[in-house]
């Protein structure tokens, strides 16, 4: 099993719902965005296109952020999810400078918005996350609680929140190793590309652009 995402760039309208949903779900502090949407213009008038690309950790099969970690806090699960074991991280920042997708974020300062955590921040924030590296976890806390019979990527409750919140059905999550999964079918049908393919990091985020 290897979790992955397929993003249909043709459908993304750049509404940033995924950005906000991720921020809320993970109680991220001000200025930290594990998921964000890049707004690009391509071509020259009159052949112009505006496109939106949801970006974040690519959960590479060969993640450059993992081996550089001096403590082993930066880890990759058997299902491909790359995450930070907060209580092992010393906050050296090496993984952040090793990631070409700039998907890692050190939480230096106060990790809530106002004088005290809001109820939703209290619910999801992790005090261990202060002073250490943070990153997208593919909402493993949601994926991991899927009971038998439920399928992350199909059942919204057990799907990364950026995917389940997408208003345009532009983002899809599933098992890349399962030929019958939604993401495998999309890959077969559209032959989506990956970002920075030349680095051969084997990212788990695929983009349908045509």
């Amino acid at each position, binding site marked *: 099993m290897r979790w992955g995402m397929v993003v249909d760039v043709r459908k993304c309208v750049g509404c940033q719902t995924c950005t906000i949903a991720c921020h809320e779900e993970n109680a991220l502090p001000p200025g930290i965005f594990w998921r964000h949407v890049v707004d690009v213009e391509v071509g020259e008038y009159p*052949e112009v296109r505006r496109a939106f690309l949801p970006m974040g950790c690519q959960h590479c099969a060969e993640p450059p952020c993992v081996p550089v970690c001096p403590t082993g806090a930066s880890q990759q699960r058997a299902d491909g999810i790359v995450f930070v074991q907060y209580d092992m991280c010393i906050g050296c920042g090496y993984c952040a400078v090793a990631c070409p997708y700039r998907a890692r974020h050190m939480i230096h300062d106060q990790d809530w918005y106002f004088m005290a955590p809001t109820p939703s921040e209290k619910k999801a924030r992790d005090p261990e996350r202060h002073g250490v590296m943070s990153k997208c976890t593919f909402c493993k806390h949601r994926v991991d609680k899927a009971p038998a019979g439920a399928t992350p990527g199909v059942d919204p409750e057990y799907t990364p929140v950026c995917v389940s919140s997408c208003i345009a059905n532009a983002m899809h999550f599933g098992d890349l190793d399962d030929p019958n999964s939604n993401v495998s079918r999309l890959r077969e049908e559209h032959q989506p590309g990956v970002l920075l393919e030349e680095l051969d990091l084997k990212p788990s985020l695929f983009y349908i652009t045509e």
Partner: protein
Amino acid sequence: MAETRPPAKGRISTPIALMPAVLQHEWDLYHATWFTLMGVGGGIFLLSRLMRLERGLGVWLGLPVVDLVSFAVIGVGGLILIWSLGRPLRFLRAVLKPSSSWISRGAIADFIFVVLGGALILPGLTLGTARPFAWLPWDAWASTTAGRVIEGVALAAAAIVIVYAGLVLADRAAVTFWRSWAIPAQFMLSSLAMSMATVMVLQTLHATPIRELECWWLAAFLVLLLAAIVWHLATRTTQPGKAEALARLYTTYHAVFWGVVLGAGTILPVLLAVVAVLAPPARDVLGVMSLMLTLAGGFLLRLLTLRVGYFPPVSGALRVPKR
């Protein structure tokens, strides 16, 4: 069976920057400081021991002053390193992944260097008339087999200490400007130059004549450093990420880079070292000047290397409508 879609209309764009090159902000002043101090601390021990200068550089409480200076500089560098961490109290965990991380290898080398270097000089410790560690089967000058073994391992650790900061940058960072053998070479040569100048000043302070050899070594380290810097500036200049780094170096930091790092911190000390060879009476003054200049140049070399660290653009090709 998957639905067969009609071919998309339009043309594929040439790869464009979906995310432009951006500066890294993780590592800055603290890191440049500990990179510098580790380099100088390790270099002082390495050069003085390899050149067998430690006896002529003074003794304090029976311990070689040059070694104490080395440990003090390393100690301050280590404290700054620890302070720079997001979770300083967890610093001991930095040694857990030597198989793949240069930070772990460097941290282990730091520990080995300080422990074995300290153990090496310990038998010389004199408190009043007492020498509480004189029973150890070696002396501070490594004149016995056991001492030579400890000194050899400490020297190897010191060599790693002066080079690992550069390897941290060059080995696996995504920043293109750092991904070159020239970075560890620059850091190592800069460390050796700063250390040589420090040793020359210690010679002056202990009324030990600075030999021609020390002046030549200082000049050689700096000439090689200059070559490494020029090579790095002149190669792969259009590489994504490096092009932006060079542009920033030549604009935002041009005065500091050309004036201090290259001019005052590298080329001028070479000239001073050559003058020192020709004019022995001026060596004491020239040594002090060389130390100040190489320290400023070496620190700013590291700081600018960090501050022009750009992540390369994330590029991709998209289909553009054909009209």
